[in-house]
């Protein structure tokens, strides 16, 4: 219990004292996971909406593939991105391995199916004739899609929160493609793993608590946006 209590005390000390290294790690975590969520939001909501509204052969199969992707193991994503970005790999010429950009790519791959899967479910859950109702009011097709998204905004924002959660909490892929380089690609999760490995539990607990606070703040902001319009 002492270990846990010491960890909590140390966490708040680090936060209050604005420890420069912890602050840098926290900001980098926010930047990388925030960018990945933003990219995941654009790709996930756009592709999810298109898949939900379109009719094409193999639609159900594609949806089940995306739903499987919602539980994509981060190490597999890390392995895939590493292979792609490896010096002799197909995208090796970019020289992106062990950079924050590679971590953003890996986390985006994790976030996209989560956001797309929830978007598909949200759009398919709208009343069957709502699209026709909007069209009948004189809306163009792009405007119709936009109005449908507005109607589904509660579950869509839940999807974004889940996407951010998936991105910010993953560790396997970040270590594999980011390298956990101090002051460059070290984020809260990778730092926590490292400190735990070193037996430095107090610092690991402190980093874990900061990660939880960060996740809470971001989701709280998204929840406020989500609930502003109230329930339908």
């Amino acid at each position, binding site marked *: 219990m002492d270990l846990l209590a010491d960890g909590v005390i140390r966490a708040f000390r680090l936060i209050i004292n604005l420890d420069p290294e912890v602050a840098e790690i926290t900001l980098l975590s926010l930047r990388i996971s925030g960018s990945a969520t933003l990219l995941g939001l654009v790709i996930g909501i756009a592709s999810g909406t298109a898949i939900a509204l379109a009719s094409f052969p193999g639609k159900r199969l594609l949806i089940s593939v995306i739903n499987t992707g919602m539980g994509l193991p981060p190490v597999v994503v890390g392995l895939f991105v590493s292979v792609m970005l490896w010096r002799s790999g197909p995208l090796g010429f970019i020289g992106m391995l062990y950079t924050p950009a590679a971590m953003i790519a890996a986390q985006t791959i994790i976030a996209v199916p989560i956001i797309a899967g929830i978007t598909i479910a949200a759009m398919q859950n709208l009343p069957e*004739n*709502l699209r026709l109702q909007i069209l009948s*009011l004189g809306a163009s097709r792009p*405007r119709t899609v936009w109005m449908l998204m507005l109607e589904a905004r509660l579950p869509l924002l839940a999807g974004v929160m889940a996407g951010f959660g998936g991105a910010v909490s993953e560790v396997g892929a970040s270590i594999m493609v980011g390298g956990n380089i101090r002051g460059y690609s070290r984020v809260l999760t990778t730092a926590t793993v490292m400190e735990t490995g070193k037996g430095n539990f107090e610092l690991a607990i402190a980093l874990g608590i900061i990660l939880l606070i960060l996740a809470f703040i971001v989701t709280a902001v998204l929840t406020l946006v989500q609930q502003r319009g109230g*329930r339908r």
Partner: protein
Amino acid sequence: MSDIIIEAENLISRRGAFRLDIPRVRIFSGETLALIGPNGSGKTTFLHALSFLKKPESGRIFFRGFEVGTRSDAFHARRRCAMVFQDPLLFCGTVEDNVSSGLRIRGIPRAEIKKTAGELMERFNLSRLASRPSRELSGGEARRTSLARAFATSPEIIFLDEPFSSLDASSRNGLISLFKMNMREAGISAVIVSHDREEILELADRTAVLEDGRLTDMGTTETVLNNPVDEYVASFSGMDAVYSGKVIRGTGGSITVRVNGIEVEAVSDAAVGEDVVICLRPENVIVSTVRQKKGSSVRNSLDGSITDIIQTGPYYRIRMDCGIRLQSFVTPVSVARLRLSVGKRITSSFKATSVHVIRKGRRYPV
């Protein structure tokens, strides 16, 4: 009723295995056309094609004489129409947001939107609910909002898919009156899908009957309902005794049909041996405790017994088993005088001319 607002030719539309095939239909300015037919007969598919919401597989549709062929044509035609679904399908936001949604989509200036939405809310008794969130509305209020939203864009024609169903009788009647009044004021056309006879009698100038994706009858509502083309329309128009039978005798337009082992006389051109359906309205059936005297013009007298007596408003509905099940409307005075009770032996009588005969397999040309 002279200008044609929408005209469709050789319309074919598919929905899975279902096929809608309409050779020709015209909707005139200012008229209300009702679409009736059993579930799955294609009413909604037809409505979606006519309202330019779903492109038919083939065929041509004209709006005010111009062919609507491309997506852009359909978009512009839709802006001159409105649609009200069975479910009000209100958006998140207030009643005013919903009523003004079509105007906002058209990019109309804010002040004008406010004015028009205000007028519409007043016309549909929604002014006091203007700032109420749509999710807090009752069923009737939500329907009124949905109707006000449709009228707000000043459409030339309004399409309605069972807009008054699943409402209690008083809300429904109030909403129908409100709709009728607004239709009259706006002087626009309407196509309404309905399963309710009273609704159609009150609203529709003409009625089209759909069955299995084809138009089987079309004409003035009175004509269509008084001369049912099939069993569905017969039941729809209030003929509750609908029986299949075979013509066993026929002379000079007078036929005898054998139904359930009994013989019924009717007036029809049907030939001997032909399968027909006979239909009767309860108001044409007379209940008596003595058999009709010979010499009466009543051609059908069937002995039987009363199976049920139900009070329906100011009169009684008497159900009888006379070889075929029949119903009759009887006043409380007659029930008392004839001492009608369940199980009592009676004679039901009806004229041959009050029996409507449907010739099976005959399609009425449209």
